[in-house]
C-alpha cells in the first residue's frame, strides 16, 4: 500500500512561525563537497564501497514564515566492477510538482584522477505511476576502479513532518551521517534501528540538530529464510512538539493523532443516500439469520467479488466506488467500513506494516510504518484485509502477523497497540498421502492426495483458481510434466473457504510417474523420496548474517504406502529413519521425523515436519539447517527391489 502514506499530506498543523520571519540562512548552504575531490587510498582487492553517505533533512522557516524542508544527499562511491558501475551510474532523484531540485552536482573521478563534471542540461524528468516522479541523469565519464560522487538538495513547502532513512545496503558503507535540523521551537525525535547509533541533540539559538554517525557499516545481503530489508540499519524521525511560549506543549504525531487521522480516514460517516444504498445491498446478501461471523464472511465475499483494486485510481466516495466497481486501497477500506457500520458489526481498524520490510515499533510512533490497513473483530478475534483478494476472514496475512499494530475503535478513535497474532503451526497444514501401485513396475501409478489448510491453503487455492493446469502438473514430483493426471477430485477450492479453517483445500489425482523407477540390471530402484517433491537445501558457504525468518509456522505430514512387487525383496527401507530438531527450553520447536512400518508386503513410510517457531536467532542456524536439510535428505532416499532367485 505505497500510496497510503500520501493521505497524510492533508494533516494540517499550525506550525507557521510565530516569531518574525526567519532571517537565518538555511544550513544546507553551508554544506558542500570539496572542490578538490578527496584522495582515497584503496586496498588492492577493494570491493565496491559507499565511501560517504550523508543525508541532511532541514526544516526551516522561509522569509514569509512558512516552514520549508530542504533535503540534501551526498554520496561518494568507489566502483569495483561492471555490475556496480551499472548500478551507480544512473541517479534517480524523487521530485514532484511541489518538490524542486535546488542544487545538483555530480562528477566522476577516474582511476588516474581525471574528473568529469556533470552538466545540468542532461537532467531528464519522468513521471511514471508505478515508480513515481523523478529527475534522472546518468553520471558522465564513470569508470571501473573510479569514484562516483553526487550531491543534491531538494526543497518543498508541502511538508511531511516525519520520515525514515534507510542507511544500509548490500554494499559496505563508510562515513554514514544523518542530520535532522529544525528551528528551536520544533522538537523532532528520532530513533535508530538494527544497530545504528541513537542520535545526539545539539541546540543553538537558531536551530536544533539531531545527528548520528556510523563509520564502518557491513553489507547485508539476502539469505534463504531472511528478511534483510527489515534488518537494515535505519532511522525514523518525527515532529513531537511545537513549543509556543506560555503554552503547555502538546505531543504531536503521537498514537492518538494517528488514531484520529486513520480512524477518520477509514470510518468517516456516510451520507444518507450512501447508507441507504448499502442497506439495500446488504438486504440482497440475506444476512439476517447468519451468525456474526458468517455475516462478516458474506460481506467480504461480496465486496471482494464486486470491487477490483486499482492501485493508482483517484480517491472516490463510497457511492462512486460502488458504482464504478473499482477502488484504490484506501477506498476499498472505507467501503468495507461503511458496510460493517451499516450492518452494525463491531470492528476495529488496525494500522500496521509489512514485517518483512519493516517491523512495527510499539514504542515509537514511526509514521512511515503506518502503511497497511486491516480490520479486526474483537468478538471473534479475527481479521480481514480488504485489499488482498486471496486472504479471507481469519488470521492476519502472514506478513502482517507476528507484528504490532495500532488498533483503533471507530467513532471514539480510542486506540491500543497490540500484537497481531500469527496462526498456530498446527493450523497451517500441507499433507500428502500417496499410494503407489507397481502393477506395471516400469510405470508406477500413484494415487496422490494432497491437502492444505491455513496460510498454505490461501496460496494453493489462488494457484488453483488462476493457473489450474500449472498447479496440477507441479503437484507431485519434479518429473511429472510428461504425464496427464486422471481421476481428479478437488475439494473446497473456492476462495471463500479460506475463511473456514476446517475446510481443507484438497486435490486428489492419479499420476503415471515413470521417473520414480530406475532399472539396475534385474533389479529396480524406487525413488520414494521424490514423492514429497524437491526440498530446500541450505548451504553453509558463509557465516549467517540475518536471523532466521520463515514466512509462517507450518506442519507437513506425508505418508506413502505401497506393496512390494511380487518376486522382489525390499532393501534400504531403514534409511527412511531420520529425526532432527531444534530445541528451546527442552521443547522441540522445529522438527523433521521420518520412518516406516511394514505389515506383510505392505509398506508405509511417513515423513512429518513442523516449524512451530519461525523467528530464530542467527546462532540457531546450524540446528535449523539440519532440520531443513533432513527433508532434503529424505527427498534423496531410494529403495531397492531386488529380484529374488
Amino acid at each position: 500500500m505505497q500510496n497510503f502514506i500520501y493521505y497524510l499530506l492533508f494533516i494540517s498543523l499550525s506550525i507557521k512561525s510565530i516569531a518574525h520571519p526567519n532571517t537565518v540562512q538555511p544550513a544546507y548552504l553551508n554544506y558542500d563537497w570539496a572542490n578538490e575531490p578527496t584522495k582515497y587510498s584503496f586496498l588492492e582487492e577493494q570491493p565496491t564501497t559507499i565511501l560517504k553517505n550523508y543525508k541532511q533533512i532541514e526544516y526551516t522557516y522561509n522569509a514569509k514564515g512558512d516552514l520549508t524542508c530542504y533535503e540534501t544527499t551526498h554520496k561518494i562511491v568507489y566502483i569495483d566492477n561492471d555490475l556496480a558501475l551499472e548500478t551507480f551510474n544512473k541517479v534517480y532523484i524523487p521530485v514532484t510538482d511541489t518538490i524542486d531540485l535546488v542544487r545538483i552536482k555530480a562528477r566522476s573521478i577516474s582511476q588516474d584522477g581525471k574528473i568529469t563534471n556533470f552538466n545540468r542540461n542532461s537532467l531528464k524528468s519522468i513521471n511514471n505511476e508505478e515508480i513515481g516522479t523523478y529527475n534522472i541523469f546518468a553520471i558522465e565519464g564513470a569508470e571501473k576502479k573510479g569514484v562516483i560522487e553526487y550531491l543534491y538538495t531538494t526543497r518543498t513547502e508541502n511538508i511531511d513532518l516525519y520520515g525514515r532513512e534507510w542507511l544500509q545496503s548490500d554494499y559496505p558503507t563508510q562515513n554514514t551521517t544523518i542530520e535532522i535540523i529544525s528551528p528551536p521551537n520544533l522538537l523532532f525525535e528520532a530513533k535508530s534501528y538494527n544497530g545504528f547509533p541513537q542520535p545526539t541533540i545539539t541546540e543553538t539559538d537558531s536551530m536544533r540538530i539531531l545527528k548520528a554517525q556510523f563509520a564502518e557499516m557491513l553489507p547485508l545481503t539476502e539469505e534463504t529464510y531472511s528478511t534483510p530489508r527489515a534488518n537494515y540499519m535505519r532511522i525514523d524521525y518525527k515532529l513531537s512538539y511545537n513549543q509556543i511560549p506560555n503554552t503547555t506543549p502538546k505531543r504531536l504525531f503521537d498514537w492518538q493523532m494517528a488514531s484520529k487521522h486513520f480512524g477518520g480516514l477509514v470510518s468517516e460517516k456516510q451520507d444518507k443516500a450512501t447508507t441507504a444504498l448499502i442497506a439495500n445491498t446488504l438486504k440482497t446478501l440475506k444476512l439476517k439469520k447468519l451468525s456474526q461471523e458468517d455475516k462478516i464472511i458474506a460481506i467480504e465475499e461480496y465486496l471482494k467479488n464486486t470491487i477490483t483494486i486499482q492501485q493508482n485510481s483517484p480517491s472516490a466516495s463510497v457511492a462512486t466506488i460502488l458504482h464504478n466497481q473499482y477502488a484504490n486501497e484506501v477506498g476499498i477500506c472505507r467501503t468495507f467500513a461503511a458496510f460493517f457500520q451499516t450492518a452494525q458489526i463491531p470492528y476495529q481498524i488496525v494500522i500496521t506494516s509489512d514485517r518483512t520490510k519493516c517491523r512495527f515499533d510499539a514504542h515509537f510512533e514511526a509514521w512511515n510504518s503506518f502503511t497497511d490497513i486491516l480490520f479486526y473483530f474483537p468478538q471473534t478475534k479475527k481479521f480481514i484485509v480488504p485489499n488482498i483478494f486471496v486472504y479471507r476472514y481469519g488470521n492476519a496475512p502472514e506478513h502482517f502477523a507476528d507484528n504490532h499494530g495500532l488498533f483503533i475503535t471507530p467513532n471514539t478513535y480510542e486506540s491500543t497497540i497490540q500484537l497481531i497474532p500469527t496462526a498456530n503451526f498446527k493450523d497451517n497444514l500441507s499433507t500428502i498421502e500417496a499410494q503407489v501401485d507397481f502393477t506395471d513396475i516400469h510405470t508406477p501409478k500413484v494415487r496422490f492426495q494432497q491437502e492444505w489448510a491455513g496460510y498454505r491453503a490461501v496460496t494453493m487455492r489462488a494457484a488453483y483458481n488462476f493457473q489450474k493446469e500449472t498447479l496440477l502438473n507441479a503437484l507431485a514430483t519434479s518429473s511429472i510434466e510428461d504425464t496427464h493426471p486422471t481421476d481428479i477430485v478437488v475439494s473446497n477450492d473456492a476462495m471463500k473457504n479460506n475463511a473456514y479453517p476446517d475446510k481443507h483445500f484438497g486435490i486428489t489425482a492419479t499420476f503415471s510417474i515413470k521417473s520414480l523407477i530406475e532399472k539396475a540390471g534385474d533389479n529396480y530402484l524406487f525413488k520414494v523420496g521424490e514423492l514429497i517433491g524437491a526440498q530446500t537445501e541450505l548451504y553453509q558457504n558463509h557465516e549467517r548474517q540475518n536471523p532466521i525468518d520463515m514466512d509462517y509456522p507450518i506442519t507437513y505430514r506425508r505418508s506413502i504406502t505401497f506393496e512390494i512387487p511380487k518376486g522382489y525383496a525390499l532393501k534400504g527401507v531403514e534409511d527412511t529413519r531420520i529425526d532432527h530438531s531444534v530445541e528451546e527450553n527442552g521443547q522441540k520447536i522445529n522438527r523433521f521425523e521420518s520412518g516406516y512400518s511394514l505389515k506383510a508386503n505392505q509398506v508405509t513410510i511417513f515423513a512429518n515436519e513442523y516449524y512451530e517457531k519461525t523467528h530464530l536467532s542467527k546462532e540457531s542456524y546450524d540446528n535449523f539447517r539440519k532440520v531443513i536439510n533432513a527433508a532434503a535428505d529424505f527427498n534423496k532416499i531410494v529403495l531397492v527391489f531386488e529380484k529374488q532367485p
Partner: protein
Amino acid sequence: MKQVTKLFSTTIFLLTLLATSYHTYAQSVGNVEHLIKKYPDEDAIVLLNKEHVIINFENNQWYIDRHVEEKTQLLTTKAQMGYAQESIGYSGFETISDIKAQTLLPNPKGKYMGTPVTDIQENDVMIDGIFYGDYKEKTFVYPALQPGAITELSYHSTGSEPHLLINPFFISSYKGPTFESEFSVEVPSHINITYRLFGDNTDAIKFNKTNIPNGFKYTWTAKNLAPIAIEDAAPHRSYYAPHILVYINDVIVNNQTIEVLGSEKKLYNWYNDMCKNINQQESPELRAKVTELTQNLSNPTEKAARIYNWVQNNIKYIAFEDGLGGFVPREAGDIYQKKYGDCKDMSNIITNMLRMINIEAHLAWIGTRDRPYTYSEAPCPIADNHMICVAKIDNQYVFLDGTGEFQPFGLPTAMIQGKEALVGIDANHYEIIQVPTAPKENNLRKEQLNLQIQDKTLVGKGTCELTGYRKIYIEYDKLKSEAKGQKDYFNNFLRKGNNKCAVKIIDTQHFNQANNTASITYEVSIPNYITTTQDKIYLNPHLIKPFKDATIDLEKRTIAKESDFNYEDSYQFVIELDKAYSLAHLPENKQFKNEYFGFELTYNYQKNKITINFKVFSNYLLLKTTNFAAWNDFVQQLNNAYQEVIVLKNTP
C-alpha cells in the same frame, strides 16, 4: 515456502495477485452463457479489432491519422482482472485524441447500456533497457466489469512522420478469439503505398481496393480468428501471428516525386540523411586514446580487437530514446567523454576509432532475431531495431556489436545471427550482408570429471570448458545472478547429481573478451547420491539430465520453438572403483541423432574404471512444428537412458 515448487509462473502470478484483487465468480450478465460454453478455455472474445488509416500530403506536410476501435467481451473473472486497466501507448511522433471508452452492460430488457470511463491519466512508459525515452501511455480503468460485460474503446492518433507512424496491423489478439477484424488505408491517388502480409494463415484475410473521391481505399477483413498463441521458447509473434504491413513509397507533387520508403535504397537514404551531420569534427581526445591503445600493435585485426574490447569495457549501455534522436548516434567525442551510450553510440564510436587507424568501418542497421523480415520484404524501419559496426579487415567482414559485453572480437551477438545488416558505405552506397550463424561445434560445454565412491557420497575433481555463445551466456547469467546478490554462480552452475551437491571452485580461467574458451576447475561432493544394500552399490551415472522435461505437448503447441544458438555439450565421467567392488551391471550404449538434435551415451569398463561419455546437441535456431514428433521421440529416448543405472557388487 519449504517445498521448492516448480510453480514459477504461479509464484510470479501470486505476487501480482497479492497486490491486487479481482472477482472470481461474480454473476455473469447478458447473453454470454453460450459464448462461455462455446469457448470454455477462453477468457475473452474480441468482437471487433479495427483500424482505419488516412494518409495525406498537403503543403509539404504529411498527415497520418489512425482511428482505432476495439470491442471486447469478457467471459471470465480472470479477464475482469486482466483487462480492467487499459493503456494506449504512443511515441513522441503522434498525438492521441478523442479517447472514448465505456463498459457496456445489458439492462433488464437485454439492451446494452454504456457506463463511460471518465478518468484518463497520462504516464511515462518505462521500457526495459531504456533509461529515458519519449514513450507515453494514456491509462484508464473500465468501470463496473463482470463476466459478460463488453469493453469498448476508440481513439485517434495523428502525426506527420511518414516513415514511422503506420504500425503493422495484427488481425488477431492475445486476449481471445477475434470475431471481426478490419484494417483499412485511405490514400489520395498521388501517394503510392505498398502492402504485404506476414505470418501464418494469411489466407483468411480478404482484400478489397475501392475508388474513393481523389484516391483509393484498401481494406483487409478477416473473421473468426484463433487467438495468438503464447508459448515458452517461442519466437516473436511477428513470425507467426498474421499481420499486414503498409508503408508509403512516395508522393508526387507538381510532377516531382518525393521518396519515402519502399526500397532498401530509400530506407538507407532516410537513415543516412539523419546521420550525415555527425562526426564532422574529430575528437583529439579520442584520437589520443586510439593512438595509446594501438601504438604497439602492427596487425589491423589486433588493433581492431583492442579498440572493440576497450569500448566493451569502458562504454556502458545507457539508452536515451527521444524522438528522431532515437535514430541518430551521438558524436563519438561526446560518447568518449560521457563513457556511456546505446547501440548506435557504441557503433559510432567503434566506427570512428577504427577509421582513425585507417581500418574500413561502417555503421550498420540490423534487425535482431525478434524481427522476421528481410530488407527486401520490408524496406521500412520495422525491419530493424539495432545498430552495429561492420568493419572490413583483410577483405573479411567483421560484425562488431558494442552492446555485447562479453563477445570475443569477431563473434557477432547471438541475437543477430542469420540476420541482414544494412551497411552504410557512403552517402550513395550501402550493402546488405548476412551475419553468419555459428555452428554447434563453436559453442561447447565440455566437462571431464573423475569420480570416486566414498560411502554414499560421490566425490571428484573436474574441469568444465566453455566456448563461443556457451561461454558468453554463462557470463551473462553470472552477472544477472550477482546483480541479485548471489556470489556463487559457478557453484550453482556446476552442481550435479542432486541439490545436496557441494562444489568448490579451484580455478577459473579466461573469462574475458580476449578469449573464446574459458575453463573452470572444480571439486565436487554429492552426498546421499549412492544407494547401497548389503552387497551392492547402485549408481546413477546421469549426473546431469538435459532435456529431461522438454517434451512438447503436440496437441497444444502450434508455434515453432526458438533457441538462442546451436550448441553441443559433452560430459565424460570416469568412476574409479575401489578394490572392494567389482562391476555387476553396465547399461547399454544408446544414441539418437538427426539434423537438429541428438545424443550419444556410451559406457566403458576397463581396469577398474568406468567411463561414461555423454554428448548432447541442439542444432537449430527455429525448430518447426513438423519436427516436434521427432523431438518428443528424442526426449523419450533420453529419459529411457536416464533410467538405467550401474550396479556394483562387493568383491568376495
